[in-house]
Every structure is written in C-alpha cells, then in structure tokens.
C-alpha cells in the first residue's frame, strides 16, 4: 500500500469522515479549517473557512449535500458541501464536542461541553432540506442535560428517538431525546474517557474506543458488550472495516508524553484487529504522533487516519488485503 499524504492542516487532526460513496474525505483540525479531499487521488476539493476555534467534530449527510461542524468557537455550522458556503450557524455558551446526522439526514445531534458554569447539553436539531438550506430553526427541537459524567461522543441509535452517548467516566448510555431520560446505561463499559464512537452501517451495534487502552463492540439494543479489544496504549479512535471482519484502532500515548518516549515505544500505528477473534492481525505505521482519528470508506476499499502530526494518510487497500484469509476459509456475515 502506498498512502497518499494530505497536508492540509497546520495542527493536529480532530476528526475525519468519509461520505457515503467514499469518494470525499472530510477532515477537521485544531487549526480552524475543514478540508474536503477526493479520496481516490488526494486532490483537495476545497476548504470550509469560517470557524474561529478548533473544529472538534464534523459529519456529512448521506447525500453529500450538507456538512455539519462543531467547534470550540461555540458554534455549530451547517455548510454546503459543494460550494463551501456556511448556510447556517447556531451559537451556544460552550464548545461543541460531537455532532452526528441521523439516517434520514433530517436531524442532527450535538453535544456541548460542560464548562464555565454551564451544564453540558445534548441538543437535537431538525434540519430543513428545502431550498438552499439557509433557513433553519434556530432553536433545538429537543434539549436535555445529562446528569453525571460529561458526554464526549454521540450518535443516533437504530431505535427511533434514541441517541447513544459515550462519557468522560467510561460510561456508555442511551437517552431518549424527547424526554431526556436515560433509558439504559453501562456504567462500566470503559474504565476511562470514551474517545470515539462509530456506528455499524445498520446501527445495530457500534464500536467505542477509550483512554483505558481498550475498544469495545456494543449491541445498540441493550448496550451489551459483544467484544473487547485490549491494546497497550490509550486509544483515540476505533473504526469498523466494511466488508471485512476487522476493526481499526488508532492511538498512542498522550501528546504531552510524546517527547519523552521513543517512536518505537509510542506505537503510533493503526492496528487491525479481527472483529470476531479479538486478536491483532496487522499493523500499519506511518504517523509521527498518536493517531487521533480513523475512518474507513463505506465502500471498504480504503481507509484514512489523521494524526497529532497534522497529516492525513489515505490508504487504498491493495489486493493482498482482500485476498488475505488469516483464519483460513471462513466467512463472516455482517
């Protein structure tokens, strides 16, 4: 595999996302810019300029028409994917840490941080897809304040009116956003902060990564832990490889201790684990710092990783990846 290096950011990456067809790759970083790239050749299509702080989170709808971004400048913005124009802006008292579209692209959920005396809140907005998208409701359709540990990541569940959240304490919970009630939770899903949460295509299960060095596969229905992948470094991101029974994990030691440990010790690699056998099957190195975010193209033919070093590396899987059968002739049905 020959990775394509994308150098569109001056600071560490915070999140990367593929669109549904996997031809566009969105990346955001602490340098306030959001970039969009053609994934097949690494050409930059454009940038979404306007944020005034670290862009913590992005999500693109399934039609690749709208892009949502949440930033430390306390705004949530809606962008036109094609033109790069900001269509709408919501302002909050604190930073937006996580944003996600629902399956039908008409709602977004976002988490605002608990800070400066303000409570952390989870808001659900209805997105109007009529016209050019500049006319949106300024007030959220639903808002609630989860009690207890801060929420760090969120996504819509496969069940209507439910969102799945990951928390600072390692808790994973399901909320009913209409009532704000915590329907179900798993307090001990992780031992430390949940850093990433990515849904399976049908949203019946999801993967979380945590600073407690483990990634776990959860069932959306009852938050039962299906699989656990324990590594030796804190994890920043976990992704599901589509079409293949693998899990991609990225991490590395904390940014603050990077200079005091050697590169080899740092384990700045993307690790491939077998989804079923919970065993590491391969590694890809390349980043000079911890891997902050990983995304796999929904087509399953390529993946990208964004690191603390400010690079995005796009890897198109070669034939050996598709032919490899590390556990012999067995088929895993998704």
């Amino acid at each position: 595999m020959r990775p394509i290096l994308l150098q569109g950011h001056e600071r560490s990456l915070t999140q990367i996302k593929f669109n549904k067809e996997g031809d566009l790759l969105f990346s955001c970083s602490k340098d306030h810019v959001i970039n969009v790239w053609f994934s097949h050749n690494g050409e930059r299509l454009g940038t979404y300029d306007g944020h005034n702080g670290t862009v913590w989170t992005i999500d693109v709808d399934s039609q690749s028409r709208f892009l949502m971004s949440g930033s430390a400048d306390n705004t949530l913005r809606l962008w036109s994917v094609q033109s790069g124009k900001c269509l709408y802006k919501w302002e909050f008292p604190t930073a937006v840490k996580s944003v996600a579209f629902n399956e039908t692209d008409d709602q977004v959920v976002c988490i605002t941080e608990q800070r400066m005396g303000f409570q952390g809140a989870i808001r659900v907005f209805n997105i109007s897809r009529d016209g050019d998208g500049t006319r949106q409701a300024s007030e959220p359709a639903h808002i609630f304040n989860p009690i207890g540990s801060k929420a760090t990541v969120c996504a819509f569940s496969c069940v209507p009116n439910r969102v799945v959240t990951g928390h600072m304490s390692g808790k994973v919970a399901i909320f009913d956003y209409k009532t704000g009630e915590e329907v179900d939770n798993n307090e001990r899903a992780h031992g430390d902060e949940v850093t990433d949460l990515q849904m399976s295509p049908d949203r019946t299960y999801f993967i979380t990564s945590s600073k407690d060095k483990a990634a776990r596969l959860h069932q959306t229905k009852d938050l039962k832990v299906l699989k656990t992948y324990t590594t030796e470094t804190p994890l920043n991101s976990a992704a599901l490889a589509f079409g293949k029974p693998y899990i991609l994990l990225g991490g590395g030691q904390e940014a603050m201790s990077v200079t005091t440990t050697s590169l080899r010790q740092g384990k700045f690699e993307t690790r491939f684990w077998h989804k079923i056998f919970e065993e590491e099957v391969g590694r890809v190195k390349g980043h000079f710092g911890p891997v902050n975010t990983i995304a796999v193209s929904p087509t399953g033919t390529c993946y990208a990783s964004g690191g603390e070093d400010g690079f995005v590396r796009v890897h198109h899987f070669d034939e050996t990846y598709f032919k490899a059968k590390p556990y012999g002739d067995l088929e895993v049905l998704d």
Partner: protein
Amino acid sequence: MSRDGNVLFCSVARSDCCSSLKILIKNSATVKTSWADDVEVEELEPPKVEDYVDENGIRITIEYTINDEGKKVKVWSCFKLSCVGGWLSIVAVYPKITRKIKRTLQKSLVDHAVAERKQWSKFGQEKENKPGPDRATTTVGEDVVLSLRAGGKPTADEEPSHEEKLRKQLTQTAGGGKVVCRLCKGSHFTAKCPYKDSLPILNEGGAETPPFQDDAPPNEGPSTSNAGGKYVPPSMRGGAGASRGPGESMRGGRDDLPTLRVTNISEDTQEQDLRDLFSYVGRVARVYVGRDRETGAGRGFAFVSFEDKATAQRAIDRMNGRGYDNLILNVGWSQPREQR
C-alpha cells in the same frame, strides 16, 4: 503532456510501478504544477512534437528538446488512454528509460453522483486552482506493508527490541545455536535458570569455562550473566549474589585459584624471581608482588597462584621457612580480604 507532468509521474513510478495512486486530469494537456515548474516549461517548450496512438491504444508523444549542452534530445512519452465520463485517470506509470514513460489509464465505473462531484469547481483556499492534486498539499508516502495474519501481535515488520536482538545474536554465536544451562542443563542461560539459587554450578572439566588468563580483567563476571543484554552491576554478577554477600568486593573473581601469601621477601624481589622459585614445585598461574605506590619498591609480600590446590599445598610444605635472599620465607594460604 507537459514535461513537468512527466517528471511528477516519474518520481511516483520509479519507486513503485503498481502504485495505487490515481491521478485525474481534465485532459492530457496539463497537469497542475507549482509556479517554479511553469517557468521551466515555457523555456523548454519543444520545437516539434509528434503525437500518435498506436494499435494497442498506447499514445506515443515524441518531443524534441534542447538539453543543457545544447544538444537536441528526442523524448518519448507513451500513454494508454481511456475515458471515464470525459475524464482521464492515470494509475500506473512504467518508465523505461529516463524520458520514456508508459501510462496505463484505469477505467472505473462510478456512481453518477460521484462522477458529478468530480466536476465540482474548487472552493475555499483551493478556489481558482487548476484541477489535479496540488503537490503542496498532496504527496505520495512511502510504501507501507499490511500483512494480515492470525495469532496475536504480528512482529514481522516490527524491529525486534534490543534485548531480543542480543539474545538472538548470543544464541547464534555461543555453542552453535545451542544454549545449555550450566546448572540444570536446560535450554536457557544459566542466569535465567529457575534453579540457580538451589543448584550449585556443575563442573565440566573446563570444557566450557574459558581458561584463566593472567591479564583478564579481574572484575568481569561469567559472560553468561550478561545474557539479557542489560547492565548488571558488578556486585550482582555471577549468580546474582547467591554465592557472594551483598557488600563483597568485586575482586572475588580471581580467588577461585589457590593462592599463597608469601611474606618476608626482600624489597627488590621481582615477579619473575618468585615465578622461577615456585615453578620448581608446579605450574604457577599468577604472581603478584606488593609494591609501594610511590617508590615502586617491594613491600615484602607477594601472592602466588597455582592452578591446582595440591601443587599449592606442596609449595607451602617446601617453601615455608626456607631461606631466600638471606631472609626466611613465610608461606601460607592467602585469606580473602574481609577475613583478614
């Protein structure tokens, strides 16, 4: 194809012909470059270009350029072309010689929406930029290997740790790959033996222990104790303090030879004199004469080591009380330092 375009792809292809890099160009005329290359192109604009497509669908471009020495150079470029919705994508480049390049274009069937998105004009910081990847933001990295295999942590493409390397090296050099514990005969190093505290070291008739050398550094422990590759303090060498007390000095290593303490010798007695004297009894391993640090004159005592205990005993019997250099020798067993 412009010259700089060739150079760009050359650099890609030279390292890996089966590169998965796909480069889209709007038509085969221009490839996006930096401003520096643009200037170069103008200067080297070929005076004459032949361009044709052969029967295999490979497009051959022959350019004539003037090189640095003012000579005319014929440049061949061959491309295989195919169209994807009016777009050409190049996947693999095969340089034959410096400027002869074969490019195979990859056809790909894409979703209508995806094909449409490829026509989108650039925006934001990329606004007004030419189509095609910009080398300022997009580069091709070094080849990385992903080998998927079962069985936990793959170590193939991971360099082994220093310890592992050293162990491997030791197992290859020492004993032709065989590692035998001197205590329990197991296939591990003596220092790693689980019975090292309970079993005494087996005597193997000196077959595996190196012969003693007079000038060997006295405080070096048995080499096997360094098998782990880690630094072991001298006090912990040689069985990790099992045979020696924790506060003991490191000169214990040389005391495994039977040594006699010879006193009441004259000031000007040299090592060689004593060696001559005692070699009548048996083979002398080592002689040490105590000297004054400043004047270099003898202090009246010496240590004589023999290779076996019987010879040493015989030496005591024969030499103790004997006159030498008009003094009467006093010969006895040398005592370890802390017992004196």
